[in-house]
C-alpha cells in the first residue's frame, strides 16, 4: 500500500503533535530533517485531538495544525476530533 505523509516545521508545538501521531499510528515512521519533520505511514495516518491535548496539557483545536504544516499527501478527512489522511476516497 502506498504511503501517506505529513510534514511539519520543527518547533515546540509540533513536537507534541508528532509524539501523538507516533502513539496513535504504529506503522508511522519519522524522518527528521533540518527544521522540518516528516512522518510517513502506509495507507493511513490519524491525528487525534485527545492524544495531542494529552501531550500538550492544554486544549487543542485541530485547525492549529495548519500553522505549522508544510506539506501532506493523501485524501483528508477532518472532524472536530480527528484529522486523518488515507487513500480511501
Amino acid at each position, binding site marked *: 500500500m502506498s504511503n501517506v505523509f505529513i510534514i511539519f516545521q520543527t518547533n515546540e508545538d509540533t*513536537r507534541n503533535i508528532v509524539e501523538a501521531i507516533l502513539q496513535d499510528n504504529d506503522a508511522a515512521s519519522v524522518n527528521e530533517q*533540518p527544521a522540518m519533520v516528516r512522518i510517513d505511514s502506509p495507507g493511513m495516518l490519524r491525528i487525534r485531538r485527545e492524544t495531542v491535548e494529552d501531550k500538550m*496539557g*492544554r486544549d487543542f483545536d485541530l485547525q492549529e495544525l495548519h500553522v505549522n504544516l508544510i506539506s501532506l499527501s493523501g485524501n483528508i478527512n477532518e472532524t472536530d476530533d480527528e484529522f486523518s489522511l488515507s487513500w480511501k476516497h
Partner: protein
Amino acid sequence: MHLDLRTVSITPLRQTFDSIAARIGSDKPASRYQEATLDVQPDANFHYRPLWDPEHDIYDASRTAVKMNDWYAFKDPRQFYYGTYTLARARMQETAEGDFTFVESRGLANNFPTASKDLALKVLLPLRHVEWGANMNNTSMCAYGYGAAITQPCLFNAMDHLGMAQYLTRVGLLLDDVAALDTAKQAWLFDAGWQELRRYVEDTFVMKDWFELFIAQNLVLNGLLYPLVYQHFDSVLSAQAGPVVSMLTRFQHEWYAETSKWVNATLKIALSESIENQQLLSSWTKTYRDRAIIALAPIAALALGDKAEAVMAELVEEFNARAIKFGLTL
C-alpha cells in the same frame, strides 16, 4: 559556469545537555520544559546545614512523609516553565483586563442591582484573605519542597493566587469603594460565618509537612471552594442580576480548570509510587476534606441560602469522585 546546489543535512552531535540525556535518552531532542526543569535543583555539596533547621539539608527530601524514588517523576501536564507560564498567564490576563475595561466603560457596575452587589461583596471580598493564604502556602511548598519538577509549579501557583487576590480587590473597588475592603476584612476577622474557614487557613500556615500542605490547600480547599464560589455562587448571581460578576471572575474560573489538571497529575504520580504513599495521601485527604466541609458550610449558606446544603453535598460527591478517579481511597 555550472553551479551545483545540494542540501547537506547536518545531524547535531548532541541533542541536549548530558544531564537531560541521562534521563530521557540521547537519541531525541528534549523539550524546553524538560531542559528547564529536570535536575535543576542542586542536590550535592551542601557544606553547612541551615542555622534555622540543623536537622535537614537546605534542600532535603525528608521534610515530607511522602517518599519518592525520584522526585523528578513529577510532570506538569501544562509543561510550564518560566517562558510558557508567563505567556499563558499574559493571555488570560489580557482577557481579564478586557472584561474589567468593558464593565467599567459601560458603567455596568453602577447599574448592578444593590441586593446582588451586596451579596457579591459579602461573599467574594473576604476571599482575598483566603487567596493570600494560598499564596503563602504555595510559597512554603516551593521553599521546603524537593525537586524543581514540583517546586516550580508550586511557585507559579503561589503567584496565581496573589494575582487572584488582586482581582478580587479590584472587583471590590469596581462595585464599591475602599471602605468595602475594610468591611470585608472585619468580616474575615470577626464574623462568625468566616471563622471556621479562617481557622482552616491559619492552621495550614504552620503545617510542617509540605506535601500535607499541598493536599490541604491545592487539592481539598481549592477543590471545594472554587466550584462553590465560581460555579454555583456565580450562576446564582447571574440568574439574579446578569453576568457582570461572572465576567469579573472569569480568570479564577478558567484558572481552576487548568490547575486541577496539574494537581491531579501530581497526586496520581505520588500515590502510584507506593502503597504507603497512597494510604498517607488518602488519610490526609479525608482529614482535610472533613474540615473543609465544616469550614465552607457557612460560606455556602451565605452565598446560596437554602440551596446550600444540596449544593455542598453535590460538591463533596464530585470531589470524592475526582479523588477516587486518580487513585485515592476515601
